């Protein structure tokens, strides 16, 4: 379509143009109407090319970093890898995993469970993985979890902590009386998630003054919390700004935010055995301390996530 479009623009005076225009218009309309049919899956067309592993990531820095680590480890195992970065929230990426557009996605086991089944209990990491596998689409599975954990948390800024006497020992339950005076922030999806406003209300009985939609634990959240635009926010526990800005992470005795071990979510058919082994080897070496360090390199030192991923794989002997 490129060439016809361009040539007809400069040749509008010539007789062929009208015919080209009508044909193109017809083709475009036909394209629209056929893809408008809900019975055939329009996403089929972009299924990952056979033999290529497509690694996806959500729209926050750590997800990009983890996807780079997975992707480079898979490359080292001799597989052909494509990346699809910064896609959006789990609500979107899970759908893309299900329809085969993505082969591998860095996930957090308990968070994924809460998405699949808000009612499910989370007693141990192993039980969580079993529960997730039981509820996953049958084309998908979880590989081994890493010890590295990055949870959602409700954190308050230093100002709020000082005003209400909240310390590192305080729990979410302690917020009950002051919540109606506090504005809480988080990603737009936090508003409707069980591991979000829903759960905070049903589990801890917390009703906040209002909710401010920010980003997924990114710079917007950090800026809003440190600037007291919001008094509490969903902050990831591996966020390097917690220490820097003296945010207070509230304890979660009811385990609402459950387990959040970094775990590869993969398509059963799309990932060959050597890929499974490569990712399990990554999980075995990735712990929370390492993740904190790698996150800080990306978010504070502004290094490129791909460089950080490659350097770590090399130092861990996984390249």
């Amino acid at each position, binding site marked *: 379509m490129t060439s016809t479009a361009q040539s007809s623009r400069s040749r509008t005076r010539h007789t062929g143009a009208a015919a080209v225009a009508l044909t193109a218009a017809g083709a475009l309309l036909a394209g629209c109407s056929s893809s408008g049919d809900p019975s055939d899956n329009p996403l089929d067309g972009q299924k990952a090319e056979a033999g290529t592993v497509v690694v996806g990531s959500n729209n926050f820095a750590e997800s990009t970093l983890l996807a780079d680590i997975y992707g480079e480890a898979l490359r080292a195992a001799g597989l052909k890898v494509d990346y699809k970065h910064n896609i*959006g929230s789990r*609500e979107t990426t899970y*759908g893309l995993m299900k329809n085969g557009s993505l082969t591998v996605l860095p996930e957090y086991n308990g968070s994924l469970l809460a998405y699949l089944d808000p009612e499910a209990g989370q007693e141990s990491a192993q039980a969580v993985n079993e529960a997730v596998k039981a509820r996953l689409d049958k084309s998908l599975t979880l590989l081994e979890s890493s010890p590295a954990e990055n949870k959602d948390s409700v954190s308050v800024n230093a100002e709020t902590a000082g005003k209400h006497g909240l310390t590192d020992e305080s729990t979410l339950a302690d917020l009950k009386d002051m919540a109606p005076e506090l504005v809480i922030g988080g*990603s*737009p999806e936090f508003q409707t998630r069980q591991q979000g406003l829903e759960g905070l209300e049903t589990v801890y009985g917390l009703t906040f003054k209002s909710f401010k939609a920010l980003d997924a634990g990114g710079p917007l959240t950090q800026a*809003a919390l440190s600037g007291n635009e919001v008094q509490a926010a969903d902050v990831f526990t591996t966020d390097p700004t917690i220490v820097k800005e003296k945010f207070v992470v509230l304890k979660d005795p009811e385990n609402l935010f459950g387990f959040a071990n970094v775990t590869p979510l993969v398509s059963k058919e799309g990932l060959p055995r050597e890929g499974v082994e490569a990712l399990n080897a990554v999980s075995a070496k990735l712990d929370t301390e390492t993740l904190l360090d790698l996150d800080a390199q990306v978010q504070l030192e502004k290094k490129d996530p791909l460089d950080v991923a490659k350097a770590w794989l090399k130092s861990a002997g996984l390249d």
Partner: protein
Amino acid sequence: MNVLHFVDAFFSDSAHWHGYDGIPQRFWEHLQYSLLALAVAAAVGLPVGLLTGHTGRGGNALAFIANAARALPSFGLLVLAVLLIGFGLLPVMIPLVVLAVPPILVTTYEAVRSVDPAPVDAARGMGMHESRILFRVEVPVALPLILSGLRSAAIQIVSTATIAAYVSLGGLGRYIIDGLYQRDYEKVVGGATLVAVLALLTLAVFWAAGRLAVSPGVRRR
């Protein structure tokens, strides 16, 4: 997928009608952002457009400024402004005003320029002061075109003010952005419908303003 089904589901959900995330609140916020941006843009564009149109000087400079402003991407300006200034209304007003000034400015200039010179010369011959010529002769005749520039700016603002939600402000864009991340089509489609409704209301207001403000003598031509 039936879009109408989602529209219906969105508007019949009573939870969407009250509270800080309710339709009345979001609609009101959207209206506030839009009116403020339009007021600022008009305060900049109208006087400059009237003056240059009346004197006939600076037309090329205006066209240049308008083209340059049109080249600036609204979404980019928004993100940049937030990164440099931080939160608040100001970073949202910058792209909206940049968006709205060119149509107001250029249309006003062209509107005054295209007034028939004969009555203007007659007024001048009668010894009318220049400011009276502008406001008593030129503006009444040019008003329909001036209003069309304001209308064009207003529609663009209403549609673009949705991006305020990307930087965590309110307005109807909230439903679209939230719907995107929550994968909730009801919200996306509902939000888009509300924006389109507000745009149509804007058209209606300008139509009514045209009926009321434009002199019947001019309208009939």
